[in-house]
């Protein structure tokens, strides 16, 4: 029965539809959840204090991330993140991991494109051990040669596994075309060659430059009071250096098409990633664009792409689009996988829907349905402590103020039909970049 409790994701079950991981920045929006800001010296944390279960979650993020990896050292942030729970203080990896496991503490780190993140989950009754081990990990990581070699091996596996997945191949080829030499064009895992070349000195230097206070965002959710949060911040994070020392990453615009690239791979389907430039948060058309995408390809079973590609024609199981807003650029991306014989047709239908929404806009009832979906479903992102913590950190990383949870739905409500059309016209103009992985090289030839 362990399976019942601990491994829900491994279940041998099939879903009616795919659950798309919504990129963090668009997963945010508005419901009042009782968020308070806690300030200690130069540090700030967002807290939701809720003690009905004796557990708490801490989400941490340091701005920087894989975009700050030097070109010849790609994969550095990711390797460093993998090593942050592999031994600290006088405890080598095994002893440190046993100390965590003995108290059911979960502590993990990851590297995003623009930030390194950490996540800590604790039982309230082991709060002291939890805080002590976190502090040790953050202030005295060991970076033992044994652990470095082992994590390089793990990261190599991750690189190889991504080469097995048609959709991952299509996505990474897309990023390379869209960003060329800019760091966003590189894989966060790096390449086998760059990984090989990373030294302990590289990792230590990157650690010292990354984990500081002026690039830190914190979210605390669960059985923690305001004063306990202040103490946690003083005890753990005050020990970090005041300033991060990372290279400045240049703002950039994605390179546009129209352009296609094909990667030949044997298999029944061709997997396609398509996209454009996206839109910045501070753009006045951001919320109209957000709503427009929900109608076009962002709302799962209700989207036009699902209606036309899947429901009406049976051309794919999964088709969707989303905005990817990065610190220094932005994209609008979409994905579909279809039988080799119907891949071109699927892409043509998708492009037809893009043209339709840009030329005709949407009618009022469709807009209202999109709004009630987006504003109503926002609450579903706040029904567990773990999810709330993700929202709190995501909103901070996006640079929104703390009242965003209240204003997000109002901004969606304010979108008008003409705004949706304007957003579609600006964003879905010609210039699509398309990468196909499979047996069908798709074309962007003019249709009809």
């Amino acid at each position, binding site marked *: 029965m362990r399976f019942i409790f601990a491994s829900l994701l491994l279940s041998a079950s*099939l879903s009616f539809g795919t659950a798309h991981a919504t990129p963090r920045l668009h997963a945010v929006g508005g419901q009042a959840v009782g968020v308070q800001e806690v300030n200690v010296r130069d540090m700030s944390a967002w807290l939701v204090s809720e003690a009905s279960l*004796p557990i708490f979650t801490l989400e941490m993020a340091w701005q920087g991330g894989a975009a700050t990896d030097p070109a010849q050292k790609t994969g550095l942030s990711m390797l460093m993140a993998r090593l942050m729970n592999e031994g600290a203080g006088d405890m080598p990896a095994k002893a440190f991991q046993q100390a965590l*496991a003995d108290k059911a503490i979960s502590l993990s780190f990851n590297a995003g494109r623009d930030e390194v993140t950490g996540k800590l989950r604790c039982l309230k009754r082991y709060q002291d051990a939890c805080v002590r081990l976190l502090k040790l990990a953050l202030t005295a990581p060991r970076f033992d040669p044994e652990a470095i070699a082992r994590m390089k*091996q793990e990261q*190599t596996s991750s690189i190889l596994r991504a080469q097995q997945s048609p959709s991952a191949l299509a996505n990474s080829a897309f990023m390379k075309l869209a960003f060329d030499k800019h760091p966003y064009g590189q894989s966060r895992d790096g390449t086998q060659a760059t990984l090989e070349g990373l030294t302990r000195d590289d990792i230590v230097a990157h650690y010292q430059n990354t984990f500081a206070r002026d690039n830190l965002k914190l979210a605390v959710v669960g059985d923690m009071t305001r004063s306990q949060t202040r103490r946690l911040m003083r005890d753990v994070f005050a020990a970090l250096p005041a300033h991060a020392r990372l290279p400045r990453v240049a703002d950039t615009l994605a390179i546009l098409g129209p352009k296609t690239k094909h990667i030949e791979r044997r298999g029944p*389907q061709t997997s396609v990633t398509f996209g454009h430039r996206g839109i910045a948060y501070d753009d006045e058309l951001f919320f109209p664009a957000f709503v427009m995408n929900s109608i076009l390809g962002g709302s799962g079973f209700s989207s036009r792409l699902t209606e036309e590609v899947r429901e009406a024609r049976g051309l794919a199981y999964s088709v969707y689009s989303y905005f990817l807003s990065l610190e220094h650029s932005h994209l609008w991306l979409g994905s579909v996988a279809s039988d080799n014989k119907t891949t071109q047709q699927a892409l043509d239908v998708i492009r037809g829907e893009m043209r339709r929404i840009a030329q005709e806009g949407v009618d009022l009832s469709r807009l209202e349905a999109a709004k009630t*979906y987006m504003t109503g479903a926002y609450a579903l992102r706040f029904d567990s402590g773990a999810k709330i913590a993700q929202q709190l950190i995501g909103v901070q990383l996006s640079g929104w103020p703390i009242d965003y949870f209240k204003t997000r739905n109002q901004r969606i409500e304010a979108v008008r039909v003409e705004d949706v059309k304007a957003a579609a016209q600006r964003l879905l103009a010609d210039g699509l970049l398309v990468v196909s992985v499979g047996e069908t090289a798709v074309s962007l030839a003019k249709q009809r």
Partner: protein
Amino acid sequence: MKKWGLFLVGLGLSAMLANCTPVPDGPKVETAKLANGLEIIVLPDPRANVVTHMLWYRVGSADEPIGKSGIAHFFEHLMFRGTEKIAPGEFSKTVARLGGQDNAFTSYDYTAYFQRIARDKLPIMMEMEAERMRGLIINPDIVAVERDVILEERSMRVDGRPSSLLSEQMRKRLHAGTAYSVPVIGWRDEISALNAADAKTFYERYYAPDNAVLVIAGAVSLAEVLPLAETYYAKLTPSQTPRDARRVASDLRVNDYATPEVRVDSRVRQDSWRRLYRLPQSTPQNRQLFAAADVLAEVLDGGLTGRLYQALVVEQKLASGVGAYADSARLDNGELMIYASLASTASFDEIAAAIDAQIERMMQQPPSEAEIARAKMQLVSSALFARDSQQSMADIFGRAAMLGLTPQDVLNWTRDIEAVTPEDVRRAAQSLLRIEHSLTGHLSGDTKRGGK
């Protein structure tokens, strides 16, 4: 299948109410049953003003007629394709328009449908879910389009993924002669031949209140839910045709177990090794054995602190990753799986030998008290962490109900785990990890390396 244990006669309704024996600091679980056989489980969680409404049916791919593989999953898709009152495609759109999300899933032993939505929309969800339990319209044109969608799904999940193809072939051999030898999604040629008549037969037999369990988690109580369930679900007529008993393997030996299932495919970049052990059927009589199996898998896996990781990744450097888990939550024979990603210098034979050595050690000596304590800590706390998510809770109790377990059994699981001794774990290894009950698989991108 067991029935609910602790009934109290309730409220003069046609329903029976029950409460589980509370576990100190445990979750609140409320149960009831309608006169037409529909069982109800409510998991109150007032923290957010939303609910998870799930309807579970006691039918899965393992109940399909011979030659009709895939019909259970295919049928799940058709449930979104229209009733008298709900036009094709409108089910999910209506849920979305009301600010909710919906989906469904099919497994060997069950099929479940769910919506997640604001609490005040619960009556509409019930009305719609009840409508499609008995009032589905099966339109042959839509059946044809949906069959194409499912073939695309099979291409995406299985036919384009060498790893999935290997697992499918392994289970075909491991569970030969029983229903789990057939994949949930179905064999491609059999899916292609499914039609509206097959769907109708399947629907009429299994989609009925006496074959279903309603699970609602979130900002509601049974007192609020029951009158609504009476309004929407009580009028549905039972089918009184539960699924047939299945063939369960009691002799667990696997034919030709010493010959690995090998898949060599140039698309593979990261070679991997896996082994599936066929487990005995889980019953009320052997629950301590299965609790010991959970601890056993945790001692073996246990992330970085587990024995397999320490031996294969840290000490011998044969693998970049390794793990184990027991999937005993099955109606028939469960599985215990061990898997490893090969380091570039390692061979399949070396991996197998290293893992066999760890299993042999498990059979010879009981694990240390510290290992047992750590494994129990992980398992018991997972039950507490699960309570953070109403969706996980609905999933856990719904799945348990499909396996004939009561909510009380679920609540007792942590006590079963606490009772496991080191000697229990050793005995579980001896009885469950026998090589003749297993099948090994190799996935490789290199023809020369594939077999060894």
